[in-house]
């Protein structure tokens, strides 16, 4: 049955009305959505450009307008290539936009990076972003959307960070890693023989004087001035760096040895002629330069730097203010190379605990002392299989130069703690103090006190048995750090002795600031005390000052009965030297100290050494850093 036409028409009207209303609602919803999208696009911090399927610009948000310099009204209808002008940041050349490729839609998103946007009026801005196809319902590309982000600040920051990473903040010169990178490039470049190159390794000779006298601010200023001097004396193509501290480097590419020597000597002379004024003081300084020709037998950066260091050292040893060209057969340099092989042995000895500890007794001179015995622990480094030990000065110097002192010190301290803790308590009660030398490097090791604290916990040894010997040079080199370490060890209960007292004669001032319990009077004042009234007067004054500060004194190098008598008569508290006893294995010393026979220990010990020449405590072996 069909319905009549009027009814059909009315139903159609209903349908039309509802369809229209729905359509209007959809249009309103779409409009709202579009508004929201446009507000969103306008609000976001990135530039947005859209195009139609022919890459004709249809929309730019405000950020894109600002970045491109194109207003929406002007840009709309133009080709994307007109509005979006990009250049390759690295090359500086204009980049062709692969618009046809983008419009294929094969890639969902193409990243834009390393590009610079050239705005309508020519200004440039580093940008990053992306290009993505806009797809229709069937997946076909109906346009493009380009996102642009201003990364000029980020890129600038990255450049600044890269600059900071490769430059020395104090002088503005390249730093050591950057220098090594450049040097590596030169070493790895082909044709080094046809295109010679050299490296200068420069060390200032009197920098420490300025630093110590006027403080580090003056030292820093001096380094800045020296950097300026260097830059003025080298060629434009040369690379000048601060290697660290008061060490500088110069990479002289495309420069043979004679030319390099001319430049290096000019630098030396310039530094020599320079006068550094600080407040009312005028300082003369000089520079020692090791010049290393980059020959094929120097394979690595490390070898070059080591050769430069050695040559520089030789220059300094020969009085400073000169240039030393590195040569393989140079005796001095060969000596340094020998030192390097010693370093290898040192490292192996450390890894395999091949060191030996000996101890030299120290006797209390006051007759009623209940515990009369003390000793100084010294380190021996036996040569492989020979039973002979390396000269202490030799391996200590090598260890200092190659940064091994902290490890050596820890080995000694650890071994001492464990050895003493293993002894019977009764024996330990006869020992007054065990003196252990600490190097300057350890005094700046902020973790050393923790290490000692752990040893105290581990061994149960009374910390006050241990007295660390420090030299004024070591303590003064980095006073703030040294004070922190000394204070931390002091809190644990350890004590301190100022070693080689009197050597520098600036020592008295430091007595106020260093919390020491003992002064060890340098052997140079004791050797001739029986014959030299000046030495005698010096020792007397040291003794008086020590009493003022309530410090105990120890006379080093007591090698005879007359000397022994003199220092005892002066009121010196302790004596150390071959007359008292020569260094013996630690265990032997402990046994003698604990001898219940009551015989005078001096006789027991000194009888062993009556015929030998005076041997400084550090001579047989000792981790003793003589400043």
């Amino acid at each position, binding site marked *: 049955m*069909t*319905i009549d036409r009027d*009814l*059909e028409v009315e*139903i159609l009207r*209903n*349908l039309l009305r*509802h369809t229209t209303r*729905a*359509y209007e609602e959809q249009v309103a919803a779409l409009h709202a959505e579009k508004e929201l999208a446009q507000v969103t696009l306008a609000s976001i911090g990135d530039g947005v450009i859209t195009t139609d399927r022919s890459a004709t610009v249809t929309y730019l948000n405000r950020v894109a307008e600002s970045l491109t310099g194109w207003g929406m009204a002007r840009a709309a209808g133009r080709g994307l290539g007109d509005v979006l002008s990009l250049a390759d940041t690295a090359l500086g050349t204009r980049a062709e936009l692969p618009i046809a490729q983008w419009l294929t839609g094969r890639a969902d998103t193409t990243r834009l990076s390393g590009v610079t946007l050239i705005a309508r009026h020519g200004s440039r801005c580093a940008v990053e972003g992306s290009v993505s196809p806009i797809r229709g319902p069937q997946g076909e590309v109906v346009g493009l959307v380009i996102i642009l982000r201003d990364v000029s600040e980020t890129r600038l920051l990255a450049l600044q960070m890269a600059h900071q990473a490769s430059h020395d903040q104090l002088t503005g010169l390249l730093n050591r890693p950057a220098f090594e990178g450049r040097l590596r490039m030169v070493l790895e470049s082909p044709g080094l023989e046809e295109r010679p190159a050299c490296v200068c390794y420069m060390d200032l000779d009197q920098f420490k004087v300025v630093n110590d006298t006027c403080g580090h601010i003056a030292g820093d200023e001096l380094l800045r001035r020296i950097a300026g001097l260097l830059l003025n004396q080298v060629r434009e193509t040369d690379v000048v760096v601060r290697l660290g501290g008061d060490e500088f480097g110069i990479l002289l590419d495309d420069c043979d040895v004679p030319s390099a020597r001319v430049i290096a000597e000019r630098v030396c002379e310039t530094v020599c002629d320079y006068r550094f004024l600080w407040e009312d003081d005028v300082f003369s300084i000089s520079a020692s330069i090791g010049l290393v020709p980059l020959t094929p037998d120097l394979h690595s950066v490390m070898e070059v730097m080591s050769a430069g260091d050695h040559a520089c050292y030789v220059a300094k040893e020969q009085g400073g203010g000169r240039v030393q060209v590195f040569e393989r057969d140079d005796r001095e340099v060969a000596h340094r190379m020998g030192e390097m092989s010693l370093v290898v042995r040192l490292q192996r000895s450390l890894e395999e605990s091949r060191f030996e500890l000996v101890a030299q007794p120290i006797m209390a001179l006051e007759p009623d002392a209940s515990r009369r015995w003390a000793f100084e622990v010294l380190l021996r480094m036996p040569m492989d299989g020979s039973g002979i030990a390396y000269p202490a000065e030799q391996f200590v110097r090598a260890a200092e130069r190659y940064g091994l002192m902290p490890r050596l010190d820890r080995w000694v301290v650890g071994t001492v703690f464990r050895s003493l803790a293993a002894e019977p308590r009764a024996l330990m009660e006869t020992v007054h103090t065990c003196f252990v030398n600490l190097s300057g490097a350890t005094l700046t090791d902020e973790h050393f006190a923790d290490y000692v604290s752990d040893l105290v916990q581990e061994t149960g040894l009374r910390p006050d048995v241990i007295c660390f010997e420090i030299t004024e040079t070591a303590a003064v080199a980095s006073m703030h750090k040294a004070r922190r370490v000394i204070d931390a060890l002091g809190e644990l209960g350890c004590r301190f002795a100022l070693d080689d007292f009197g050597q520098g004669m600036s020592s008295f001032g430091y007595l106020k600031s260093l919390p020491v319990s003992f002064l060890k009077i340098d052997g140079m004042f004791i050797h001739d005390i029986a014959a030299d009234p000046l030495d005698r007067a010096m020792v007397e004054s040291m003794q008086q000052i020590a009493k003022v500060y309530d410090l105990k004194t120890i006379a080093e190098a007591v090698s005879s009965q007359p000397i022994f008598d003199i220092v005892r008569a002066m009121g010196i508290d302790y004596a150390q030297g071959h007359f008292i006893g020569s260094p013996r294995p630690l265990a032997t010393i402990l046994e003698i100290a604990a001898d219940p026979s009551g015989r005078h220990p001096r006789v027991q010990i000194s009888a062993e050494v009556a015929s030998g020449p005076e041997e400084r405590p550090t001579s047989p072996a000792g981790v003793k850093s003589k400043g």
Partner: protein
Amino acid sequence: MKSMVVPVPGPDEPGIWQDRLAAVTGRPPDVALAFLPGNGRSQRTLRELATAWPETVRFGCESVTQFADAALASQGSLHLFWFDHPGHRVEVDVIEATPDGGLHADELDRLTDTIRGADAVLLLVDGLHFPAQQLLAELRARGVAAGIPIAGGLASMASPGADAGGARVFVDRQLYGAACAVSCWYGVRADVEIVRGWSPASPSYTVTRAEGNVLYEIDGEPATEWYRRFFTVGGAIAPLPEAAHQFPLILEGPDLGRQGLYRSMRQFDEPAGAVTFWGDLEVGDEIRLGMGNGTSLVETACDLAAGRHAEAAVLYSCVGREIVLGQRAEAEVEAIHEALEKVPLSGFFTFGEIGPSARGPLAFYNHTAVLVLLSEVEA
């Protein structure tokens, strides 16, 4: 293949029927496809056909209005086929519903095997008492339809509610209620076209509650209220389901297998808030009301048939289209017959059509016309 369509004469024309059978001279037809009115004379007509052509494969179904070439018929139409090649043939199987309205799995398996060997399949289904949509789902699940053209229609009757024996199918001399006659054609190519002609007439909505053929809610609103919105005229609701025949539901997805299906309203039950259709609806179906008229339906049919070549055509057109076409019901058949260059054409107005959908075969339609174009293939 040769074919011809013979209108069945009315009860007041007994002599004419004999004359028409006698006019078919020479070799008896290989296949006689009959569409007969459910007026109680079907049995007698089947006997007469059996007597005339005992060896001919005879099958068909009852319907209210039949097609005989360019004309509508009410007393039945008979489509006779002669194959050129002796091996080409038609085999007919019958599957009956179980007493509770379901299907036997064994029979479905047998039917599946039968269909798999055929070149084309025509289904004639009891339009009232057979679970046609379940059969299609089972066949789809068994994958039988892949590559085989399958089309058909649901037999119709004048007053569905009266249940005067139903819209039955028949094979040989036997009439079957609650059954489906499955004719498998061998050596025959069948092209199936879905004739639509309806345009979207409302915004899109989503079915939110439905069970089988019964729709309860659209976008959370009772389906009856939803219909009221469109069909209330002058403060009163238009007669339903009649008024809805001109505004079928168009299914638009989102399931592509259901895209392009139509649903005709069968019953509008306002107290229950339920609207029953001749085909199923599923929750999630996106629907619109469609609209059309005689012109759009006829033109669509004409466009689809134009230029197509066939040796015979069978048309299953929905009774809903007949209602919309009204006085122009014959015009659709005429137009198709004309467009096909007067190829012998039979068929009937159905209670539902079967044909392929956009995503595959065996979809159940309302309000469409399924046109099957048959040609014998070379041996």
